[in-house]
């Protein structure tokens, strides 16, 4: 692909309070190419695209579109300039038809100002046919699968006459067959000169669909390569970097006793397939994998939030017949969800109420609360976990991210759980609080608590875990000893470079 340059991002800098999300990033796009933007979670891929379409405004740097320097004020302006973005969460209206969605807000009108149904349908059909998409333009969108909805988004973007299309992790939720169809559509687009920025961290796809690839790491451009001339190993190296892995924080607890959690042959639709795992008391087990590999889904299924199709779950040696959060709490297992604000905390309740929330039955078997005891307990945790909170009556929403996470942790410490599942325990938390959370987790393991930790940060997985399970496409594909593996090896398994073992 040696098309002319249609877009150039030069020296883009974007800062958020306390973080330099993009640091002098350079990226260019040629007509009719698929340019893959590769990088780990948090490398700055999405931020860069939000700068491109005017959601964020950069502190420095230029956007050069078709040879002209432009300033993107908002997504609408970007759309008018021919740049369309397909987010991971679709923007479709479920009970309208495919045709209505494609031309939403731009309905063709008859001379009387009514919607011209015939033209609406025929134009939608034309766009779909052009893309060789076999979807009925009269079908309501809610009847379509995820893959088809995505194709409708593509058709919508194309009907806007976009010649630059950004696709953010388009295959994250698609099956093999559906991916094939999406790729066929992408190829059609290419032959018509549409340029595509393809965000992904699935290495195998890059070889199939990509022309060039640019790797981002920690907000910087690592380099741009021709896909055909680049080995996957090189890309992994570029993604991970050669930074020295921090020394492992923990010595493996040699006095491991019984199994805190045992999951056997767990299945849930296509999301979780034949999962077997164990976490022993006093052990920290890392769960690695790409976004969408099924890690959070696994945690939710084990904790009884989502229904399972089959499989056995044992907590502290006791079989849980019908997993539910109540059952798990009764068996002394706790869950710290990924979205603290949405799932982990009652934001408008005081800190103390959050801390005792899961232990009410244990603390006050009579059902009548003692407010002074409640306060004393909360104060103890505020002190023990060194929470930055003025008093225990403080509303949770006014606390910092790190302190909020400590409140969630305190909630489960308060229940005296023997088994804890952490989903992204330090996401969005500043460095200092991160270290504190890590040492608290270490301390818990030393006291014999079993911990299953989901994390997208490989250094966190490597420094904290005893053992590591790697998930891909809903299955555990490998089990690794944390002291004898590397980031490259984990990414290799997670992205499917090596055959499943």
């Amino acid at each position: 692909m040696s098309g002319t340059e249609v877009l150039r991002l030069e020296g883009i800098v974007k800062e958020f309070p306390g973080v330099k999300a993009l640091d002098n990033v350079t990226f260019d796009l040629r007509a009719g190419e698929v340019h893959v933007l590769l990088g780990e979670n948090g490398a700055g891929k999405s931020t860069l695209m939000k700068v491109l379409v005017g959601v964020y405004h950069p502190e420095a740097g230029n956007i050069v579109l078709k040879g002209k320097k432009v300033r993107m004020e908002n997504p609408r302006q970007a759309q008018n300039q021919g740049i369309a973005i397909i987010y991971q969460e679709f923007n479709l209206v479920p009970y309208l038809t495919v045709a209505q969605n494609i031309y939403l807000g731009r309905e063709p009108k008859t001379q009387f100002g009514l919607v011209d149904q015939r033209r609406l349908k025929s134009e939608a059909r034309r766009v779909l046919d052009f893309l060789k998409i076999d979807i009925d333009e009269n079908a309501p969108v809610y009847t379509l699968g995820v893959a088809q909805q995505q194709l409708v988004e593509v058709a919508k973007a194309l009907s806007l006459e976009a010649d630059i299309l950004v696709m953010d992790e388009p295959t994250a939720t698609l099956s093999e067959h559906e991916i094939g169809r999406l790729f066929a559509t992408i190829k059609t687009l290419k032959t018509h000169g549409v340029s595509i920025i393809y965000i992904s961290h699935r290495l195998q796809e890059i070889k199939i669909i990509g022309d060039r690839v640019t790797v981002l790491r920690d907000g910087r451009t690592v380099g741009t390569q021709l896909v055909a001339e680049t080995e996957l190993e090189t890309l992994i190296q570029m993604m991970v970097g050669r930074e020295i892995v921090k020394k492992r924080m923990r010595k493996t607890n040699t006095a491991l006793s019984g199994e805190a959690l045992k999951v056997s042959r767990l299945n849930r639709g296509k999301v979780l397939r034949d999962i077997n795992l164990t976490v022993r008391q006093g052990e920290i087990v890392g769960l690695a994998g790409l976004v969408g590999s099924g890690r959070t889904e696994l945690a939710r299924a084990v904790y009884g939030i989502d229904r399972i199709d089959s499989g056995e779950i044992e907590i502290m040696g006791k079989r849980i017949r019908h997993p539910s959060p109540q059952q798990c709490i009764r068996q002394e297992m706790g869950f710290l969800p990924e979205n603290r604000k949405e799932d982990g905390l009652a934001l408008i309740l005081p800190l103390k109420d959050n801390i005792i929330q899961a232990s009410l039955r244990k603390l006050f078997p009579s059902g009548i609360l003692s407010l002074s005891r409640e306060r004393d307990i909360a104060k103890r945790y505020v002190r023990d976990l060194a929470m930055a909170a003025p008093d225990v009556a403080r509303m949770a929403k006014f606390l910092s991210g790190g302190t909020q996470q400590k409140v969630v942790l305190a909630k489960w410490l308060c229940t005296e759980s023997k088994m804890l599942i952490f989903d992204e325990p330090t996401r969005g938390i500043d460095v200092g609080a991160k270290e504190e959370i890590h040492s608290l987790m270490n301390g818990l393991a030393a006291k014999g608590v079993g911990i299953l930790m989901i994390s997208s940060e490989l250094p966190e997985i490597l420094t904290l875990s005893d053992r590591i399970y790697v998930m891909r496409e809903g299955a555990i594909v490998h089990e690794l000893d944390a002291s004898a593996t590397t980031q490259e090896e984990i990414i290799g398994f997670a992205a499917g470079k090596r055959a499943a073992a």
Partner: protein
Amino acid sequence: MTPETLTGRTQTRISFFRKIPGNIYAVVLLLVVFRFTSAEFLNLSNLLNIVQQGSILAIVSIGSFLAIVSHGIDLSLGAIVGLAGIVAALAMEAGLGVGPACLLALLAGALFGAVSGFVIARTYINPFIVTLGMMGIGEGLALVLGKGATVSAGNPVFKIFGGGNVGLVPVAALIAMGCYFIFSFILKRTALGTHIYAVGGNEEAAVLSGISAHRVKLVVYSFNGLLAGLAGIIMASRLGAANPSQGIGIEFDGIAAAVVGGASLAGGKGSIWGALGGAVIIAILRNGLNMAGLPMALQMVILGMIIVAIVTIDSLRS
């Protein structure tokens, strides 16, 4: 015959039965049941009575339906029914003709709805709360205007809306059907209709597509006010007098009708003809239970249970 064609046939048969809205079954079942509980139920005069009573609810139900489809709710409709009736009656008392008096009442209703719509669109306060407040304001205003009493509206021309017939068909029913055709057209054939569904189904997607959600909400609640105003005129006409509290509670029947008819409270889904079906069911229920001679309190209990049952069965079917 191969197994394949066999299964193909069964499937089409099932989908054929599924295509019939659940409330058609409900109507038939109710008619049969009430035939046995009351000998006069299926008499022509009683059926016409149902149609006449049902017409007012049917018109209000369009308003409830529009609010629900746009992912809102309108609790002020009953208050507007009362207010519009009083406005029409007072206007005629003051010497205005039937036409201008009715126009004034419709305008009052539409304006009242527009205020709700404006607040809902601009402030993001939940429509439930906004229209709850407007319900109080409307009921109070009707009482103040009518000085707390019924205002007579005995004009023979005015009586036609609620009491007249064309052949056998009540005028009220013709007006209601007219409303249904007009609003079905608006929802299906105009961009505005698509935009109402779009805002209710996924407001963010609608806004990103360049639709003004503000404008859509303003229009929806203004329409609601207009429709409730029309219902108020018919009700006052039927009774020959405007009672300030004549509409109280009808907003809940309207919501029930829309939901029984398949509208989703999550917004963006439902058919206006379903709402009509819902209104018919509720009108039949009210009349049939009454004709069966059940005490009022028991009627309310049974009505509530049947509404919940119909919606439950419908949600299980899909």
